[in-house]
C-alpha cells in the first residue's frame, strides 16, 4: 500500500490539472456575467454623465441669458451716458449759457475782492 506521502504526490498534479480544467468550463459563463455587469456599470455611469452634461448645459444657458441681460443693461446705461454727455456739451456751448457765465463772473467779482482783503488782514 502506498504511503500517504506517495498518494499526496500522485494526486497533487492531477488535482492541479483538474482545478484548472474545471475553471475552463466556467470561464465563458463567468466572463458573460462579468461583461454584463460591466456594461451595466458603464451604462449607469453614462446616464449620470449625460445628466451632468445636461445640467452643465442648462447652467450655461442660464448663465448666457444672465450675461445677455447684463449686456443689455450695460448697453442702455452707456447709451444714456453718451446722450447725457451730448446734452451737457450742447448746453455748455450754447450762447445763452455763455452769456449767463459772463454775468455770473461780473456778479462774483466783488465777492472775490472782499475775500482777498479779508485774507490780507
Amino acid at each position, binding site marked *: 500500500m502506498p504511503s500517504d506521502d506517495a498518494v499526496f504526490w500522485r494526486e497533487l498534479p492531477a488535482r492541479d490539472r483538474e482545478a484548472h480544467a474545471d475553471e475552463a468550463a466556467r*470561464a465563458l459563463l463567468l466572463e458573460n456575467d462579468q461583461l454584463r455587469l460591466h456594461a451595466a456599470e458603464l451604462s449607469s455611469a453614462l446616464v449620470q454623465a449625460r445628466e451632468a452634461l445636461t445640467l452643465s448645459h442648462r447652467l450655461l444657458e442660464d448663465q448666457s441669458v444672465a450675461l445677455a441681460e447684463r449686456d443689455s443693461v450695460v448697453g442702455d446705461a452707456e447709451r444714456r451716458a453718451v446722450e447725457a454727455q451730448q446734452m451737457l456739451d450742447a448746453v455748455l456751448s450754447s450762447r445763452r449759457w455763455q452769456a449767463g457765465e459772463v454775468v455770473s463772473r461780473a456778479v462774483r467779482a466783488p465777492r472775490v475782492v472782499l475775500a482777498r482783503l479779508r485774507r490780507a488782514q
Partner: protein
Amino acid sequence: MSEPLLTLLLLPGDEAARAAATDSFGAQGDGPWELLRVPGPAGDPAAALTAAARGSTGRYVGVLGAGDRLEPGALASVVAFLEQLGREPAVLYTDESGPAGIFSKPRWVPAYLEATNYLGRLLLVRRDVLADVGGWRPGAATEWDLALRVTERTDDVVHVPVPGLIRADADDDAVLAAGRRAVEERYARLDVPATVELTGSADGDSPGYLRVWREVPSPPLVSIVVPTIGGRRTVDGQERVLVTHLLRALVERTSYTHWELVLVTSEGTDPDVVAECREIVGDRLTLAPVAGTFNFSRSVNTGAAAARGDLLLLLNDDVDVLEPRWLDRMVAVAQDPDVGAVGAKLLFEDGRIQHVGVSFDRDGEATHPHIFEAEDAGYFGSKVVDRDHDAVTGACLLTPRALFAEVGGFTEALPLNYNDVDYCLKVRATGRRIVCTPFARLRHFESSSRTARIEDEERAALLWWRHRTMADPYTNVRGLA
C-alpha cells in the same frame, strides 16, 4: 405612469433639511421612482421606516436622510443599471459623498461590512428581501444592522458606481458602538462564537472600525512552511541569517503556540544554518529537503507533504514578526469555513506598505494596492480593515491543508512568479473567499528575496485566469479596490 421601481423613504428631521432632500428628489425629474416622507418626530425611525416600506410600491426601497441631497441623475442611473443588467439583484448600493469625503466604494466586499457600514447610502434593498428580514430594527446603527441581516441571506449585492447622494451627516461614535452590537448579534444569529472589538487599541491600529475575533476553541496545529537557502542580509544594522532571525521571532514574539516548522531546505542550504534552526525551534522542526533548480512551488508542495497541521502557513524566510498576535489573528480569520486563504499586512523595512492584498487592474495585471504608501488608515479604512481579495501574496499565506491538497497545491509550472496568484484563483474557483487581515502585521525584507522578473511564459500562464483577472470582483469600475 408605470409603478415606481425605486421607493425612497425620507427620514424625519428638521423641516428645512427635509425640504433640501425633497428638492433634490424633485430635481431627478420624472421616472419610475417615488419619495415617501416617513412620519414622526426625529429619533429612532426604525418602526416608521418599516411601516412606510410596507405601504410603498417600489421594487427597491432605500433611505434618504433629512438633509441628504441626491446627486443629479442618481435615480436614472440606477434604473439604467438595472435595465442593462437584465435582472434584479437583492441589494444595490451607490457611491456617496459627505463630511468624510467622496467615497467611491468597492464592489461587494463581505469582510468590509463587518468593519464599517461601507454600503452606506444609497442602499436599495429589494422589497421582498426587506420583508423577509422584517425591515429595520431600532438602534443608532439601524441601516448597518439591516445591511448585515440582509447580507446573511444573500450575497447578491451589487455596486452601482455612480455618486448617489451627498450626505448631511457622517456616522459618529454612537453608530460605531451600535454597529458593534449589530455585528455581535450577527455572529450570535449565526451561532458562531466571536468577540467584536473596536480598533485602535494596538500599535499601528487605526481607530474607528470594528474587528471580529472568531473564537478558536481548540487551536489547530499550524504547519509553518518556510523554504530557505539560508540567505543573509543586514537587518536593523546587523548582518543576520534571515531564517534564524525569523525563527527567533517565531519563538520569542509569537503568542500562538500550537505550531510546527517545516523547513524546506535546498541543496545549497548551509548545514550550520539548519543546525542553528534546530537549536532554536527544537522538536517542532521537520526538515523537508528539496533537490534541483529552485522552484518555489515545488518547495511549497514539498513542505506541505511533510506537514502535519490542519493549517498550512506559507512563510518566506525574509520576514520578521512585528506583533505577537499576528498568527492568532490569521487563524481566527481562517475559522470561517468560507475562507480558503488568509493573507497578512506586510511592511517594507522602512515601514511603508508592501502588501495588503492583491488585486487586478483593468488590464488584468496583478497589483499590490497601496504599495509604497505610508501605513495609515488609507481610503475609508482600506489599509486597516479585513478585506476580501482575489489573491494574497505567498510570502505569508495561511490555508487549510485539506484545501491545499484538494486544488492540487502550487502549480510547479510556475516556479517563481504568480504561483501564489494561481493558487488563490484556484481557491476562489472553489467558491471560497480570500481575506487579507491587516491586524497580522509583519516586516518583509522583500528586496532580499530575489529579483522579481516576470517571464513571458508566466504571464501566459496567468492568461488562463483572464476571465477572472479582467474582472476583479472587488475592484470597482474606477479601479479602486
